[in-house]
């Protein structure tokens, strides 16, 4: 009696139609306004983008803390030459410890790598191998020198809390390809959260359904995904059957209430998700070579490596948007090198660099890189002047990020900073430009992806205010949404 007629019937119907065929639109009445009878999509059925997509999925590698551009990606000979001299500008600072305003050379040597001749500092030992796969942007700018605000900006396009994140907008636009998994999955350090925690994947005022779902990379992948061990599979099945029976009688009394049916289906989805999520995240089937590639054999890289590997598996399984967060140790904002660039930067590189390069190699060798856009970015950069003698303070005026796959130009360097890496001066690119460009690669026109909220059509890039534009320079494809 473990497979009752009812549950079998339910399963069949579910797999044939999928969750989203229920008129979920009535689930919530948010955003309904007279004179603007626009009804928000309230389901996760896959929907084709309006434009021809160049990428199917995004993996966002969030580098919380502010990676130091002049010590990683953006060589500054003039800065190195003037080490110890006063900086000609009073640097715009966040905290204390830089009052002397003295320039500080990078403690690392730079060399060119790959056919493209991309510059990397000596602290990077794995990234050079993917030089010809990535597109380096040296001219990013943010709007705030504090982590909280700048990270909110990276996530939502503005420095104030409460708005939907990029991943939520993408899920709202595209739904989920895999009906047994959420469309937007978040992988963070199992030991804890980075700055802003769940706000980094919040749906803001978009329906909660579009928020990122946290998958744990160790233990149970989703909170409450499985019953406690004391509950056997048979007992669970019996409960599900009884719930289905009792709910069916109740539903018949309310034929117009589609929400009741959604809930009934959710119970079966819950059971399926337990299997799917567990399967996707079970990396025991991965060959030894892959595990080694991601550094799972090394205690330093094991945790981040596991998340990068899971990101690939999730994308393979049809998840559209995966966010990977960095380790929370030694610091929960690991790139935040206030004390010593020379010591702190290598320490975080040792944990994340190999798995990052492995992800690019792995995606490429599986033919997935072309349709997966990988985004490696922190919330801001760092100062050319020293802080506490050997560290650097935050800098919203310039930072370097890189993209790979999904139609961006490989082996290409975009934009430039001044002689000291203090300010982006050539081809400045804002966070909203980055968002517009990411959406473009997914086949979404950032100006047309809107949601009616508080009396206006809101969008991720708020183009009227930000002037956001798709940065065609970094793309191999045409800008469909110019």
């Amino acid at each position, binding site marked *: 009696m473990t497979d009752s007629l009812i549950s079998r019937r339910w399963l069949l119907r579910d797999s044939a139609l999928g969750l989203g065929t229920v008129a979920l639109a009535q689930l919530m009445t948010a955003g309904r*306004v*007279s004179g603007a009878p626009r009804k928000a999509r309230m389901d996760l059925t896959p929907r084709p983008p309006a434009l021809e997509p160049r990428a199917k999925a995004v993996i966002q590698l969030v580098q919380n803390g502010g990676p130091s551009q002049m010590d990683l990606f953006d060589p500054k000979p003039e800065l190195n030459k003037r080490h110890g001299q006063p900086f000609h500008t009073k640097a715009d600072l966040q905290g204390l410890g830089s009052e002397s305003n003295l320039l500080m050379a990078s403690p690392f040597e730079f060399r060119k790598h790959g056919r493209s001749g991309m510059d990397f500092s000596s602290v990077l030992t794995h990234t050079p191998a993917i030089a010809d796969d990535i597109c380096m942007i040296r001219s990013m700018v943010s709007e705030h020198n504090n982590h909280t605000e700048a990270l909110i900006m990276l996530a939502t396009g503005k420095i104030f809390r409460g708005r939907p994140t990029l991943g939520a907008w993408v899920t709202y636009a595209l739904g989920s390809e895999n009906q047994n998994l959420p469309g937007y999955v978040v992988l963070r350090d199992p030991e804890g959260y980075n700055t802003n925690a769940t706000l980094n994947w919040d749906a803001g005022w978009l329906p909660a359904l579009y928020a990122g779902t946290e998958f744990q990379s160790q233990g149970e992948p989703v909170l409450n995904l499985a019953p406690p061990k004391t509950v056997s599979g048979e007992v669970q099945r019996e409960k599900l059957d009884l719930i289905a029976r009792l709910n069916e009688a109740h539903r018949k009394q309310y034929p117009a209430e589609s929400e009741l049916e959604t809930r009934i289906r959710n119970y079966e989805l819950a059971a399926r998700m337990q299997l799917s999520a567990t399967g996707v995240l079970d990396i025991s089937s991965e060959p030894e070579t892959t595990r080694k590639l991601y550094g799972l054999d090394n205690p330093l890289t094991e945790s981040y490596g596991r998340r990068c590997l899971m990101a690939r598996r999730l994308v393979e399984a049809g998840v559209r948007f995966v966010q990977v967060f960095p380790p929370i140790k030694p610091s929960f904002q690991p790139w935040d090198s206030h004390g010593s660039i020379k010591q702190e930067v290598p320490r975080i590189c040792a944990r994340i660099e190999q798995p990052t390069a492995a992800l690019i190699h792995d995606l490429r060798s599986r033919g997935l890189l072309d349709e997966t856009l990988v985004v490696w970015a922190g919330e801001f950069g760092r100062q050319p002047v020293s802080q506490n003698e050997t560290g650097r303070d935050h800098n919203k005026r310039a930072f370097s990020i890189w993209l790979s796959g999904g139609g961006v130009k490989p082996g290409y360097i975009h934009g430039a900073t001044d002689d000291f890496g203090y300010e982006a001066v050539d081809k400045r690119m804002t966070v909203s430009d980055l968002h517009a460009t990411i959406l473009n690669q997914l086949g979404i026109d950032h100006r047309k992806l809107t949601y009616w909220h508080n*009396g206006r059509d809101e969008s991720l890039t708020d183009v009227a205010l930000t002037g956001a534009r798709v940065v065609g320079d970094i793309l191999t494809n045409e800008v469909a949404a110019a």
Partner: protein
Amino acid sequence: MGLKPPQVEILRQWIDAGAPSARMYGSLSKDEQGSVTAQDREFWAFRKLQHPALRSADAFLLAKLQEKGLGFSPAAGRVTLARRAWFDVLGLPASPDQVDAFLADRSPDAFERLVDKLLESPHFGERWGRHWLDVAGYADVYGVDSNTRDIRTGEGKWRYRDYVVRALNQDKPYDRFLAEQIAGDEMVNWRDAKKLTPEMLEHLEATGFLRTAADDTNNDALNSALIRYRVLYLTVQNMTSAVLGLTVNCAQCHTHKYDPIPQRDYYSLLSLFTPSYNPQSWLQTKDRWLADVAPREKAEIDRHNLSLDEQAKPLQQRIAALRQSAEEKLRAKKAESLPAPIREDLLAAMKTPAAQQTPVEQYLVRQFGRGVTPTALEVEGQLAEAGRVTIARLESEVREIRNQRRSYGKLQALYDVGPPFPTLLHRRGNHESPGAEVEPGFLTVLSEPGARAAFDRVNGSSGRRLAFAKWLVEPGTPASALVARVMVNRIWQHLFGVGIVDPPDNFGRVGARPSHPELLDWLAGEFIRGGWRVKPLIKKLMLSDAYRQASRRDDPSAEEAADPGNRLLWRMRLRRLESEAIRDSVLAASGMLNPRVGGEPIAMDYQSDGRVLISEKNLKSPEDRWRRSLYLFTRRSYNLNMLSVFDSPLMDANCPRRTNSAVVLQSLTMLNDGFLIDQSEALAARVFKTAKPALDARIEMAFRLTIGREPTGEERRDSAEAIGRLANQYRTTGAGVPDAELKAFAAFCHSLLNTNAFLYIG
């Protein structure tokens, strides 16, 4: 020549204010000035109340229904009605005994008396207080709350929560309730009082309403003009949303594009709050709290405590000296094993405070210090008997002195912190581009044409907020009309599921028009005529036919065709319980609910895997874990998983209407969360204890405790069969017979808690 600190401070304030110069003040541009036309004043929400001819809620609803050839559904069954009433008034289910008592009362006014009884329950204030706390934007933290582990508790914030609960229980008239929350501190002379009377305390606690905006200025790095102004912006936003149902924040940057709200009006409103949230003499949150005693009394207590500390000091010094001499003797003894030259230097170094040690001394202490340092136990042993007795006597004297210390509690209030300063309009909403000076004032569109607001200092305060509170509720004005409309609409929304104006937070042009405009105005008029009392209005609505009708019909096809969304209320709406009501009714069903009202919030535990649970180790008493959800420590994000998964609000600003998602995580929570499984076991044990031992009687009791009605014949059969199979499974896995029966029944109870019938009010 350097500047003196006061001069530096003046300069700093000037820079904080955006370094305004006379040149910048200028005059208002045409857009900033805005204009409000006679036509604007005729917009339905901005008019004075209309006085329609009809005289009951039912009459208005039926008139619209009949236009479409529709009518109300038949009355709901009494069991259904009882459950509906209990949840709507108290947010809790009725016990089977309570339902029986209601069913036994066959008098025609039985339901009326039930409603009266429910409205008198102390749990009414908890239920309706939660509704109000949503619109107020209440949380127990003060900052933006962006780090799970970094919990910034606003000490005593909860006293505002309790104030709201009390005010609702007392049925404090809404005009009074608003005035206390907006200007309580200006209504009583607390500054000069010798003692704070309960009334004064109440008035101060009430202003917690204006302390809900996220304020991160405690962090020195964020104590900037921008963040200070953001607290002000958010306060204006929350307040206008809660009280006026308007989104005025667009006018922060430019005259409102849709509503007649000039940018000038926005800054006039803002300046009502600048004397208290004063960007030029800002109080960080850590300094903004008030004692729950009068300022004079506080000063006296502080002095008293200080003098006690002074008295205790010499005694403590003597104790320390006795211990130190014993320690030094011990140290010298221990150091004997070291070579003489090192010994002397080391002992000398250890007598020198760390900051004054030379590098050589530091080295010695680092190398050998630990080896010669005695443990506390060794020191006690070294003390001579007389020394020990002396220390014990001194310590008891210190304790006696300490016991005389007096203390006071903290509360979070809003009050003027300095003389008002000229409020300048922020060009394009940017405080760094100050424009012309703006007088404090109210919304033009809700004022008589040409009227000017007047402000008189009162009780040592600018009186701006008090004048505003009076303006809001003065009878016969467009302002009080809107205030009443917004409030009756909220009450309607909580009883019927959807407001007459929906969404309830935008009564402006881009908002929705009321489905029944005349009904709304009639209700608002009745509300004001009835002395702004909430309970009689709730009662009036609950006694209507509209409220008492069934939520389902056998064949609703004609109705569905004529009015598909049931906007006209031809049946009662089926409503999902809110997050708090779900958890509270699980606890009520299991019998574990701790009904204590009020008090400090229950601390939570924030785990690295994302679980947020009640902190067992911080419980003051074990039963506290079963308090109502209202009393769990409330953050802007990161609340008890069970609550957040069922859409408890993300309190960045306020929450005029809960969302009602139906996501799979909810099913997973109800199905697999340990809390549900534990409560199901408690529920099963309760049924076994209270019901007749026959299985059918037990099934019936479990149904009544969870979904509030008796099971149908089919449900009895299905349940009994499922329980039989479950018991078999438990037996085959080795459970004894009685144990297997209880476990099977607990699994059955768990299934009941997972049904839609439990989750929805019919």
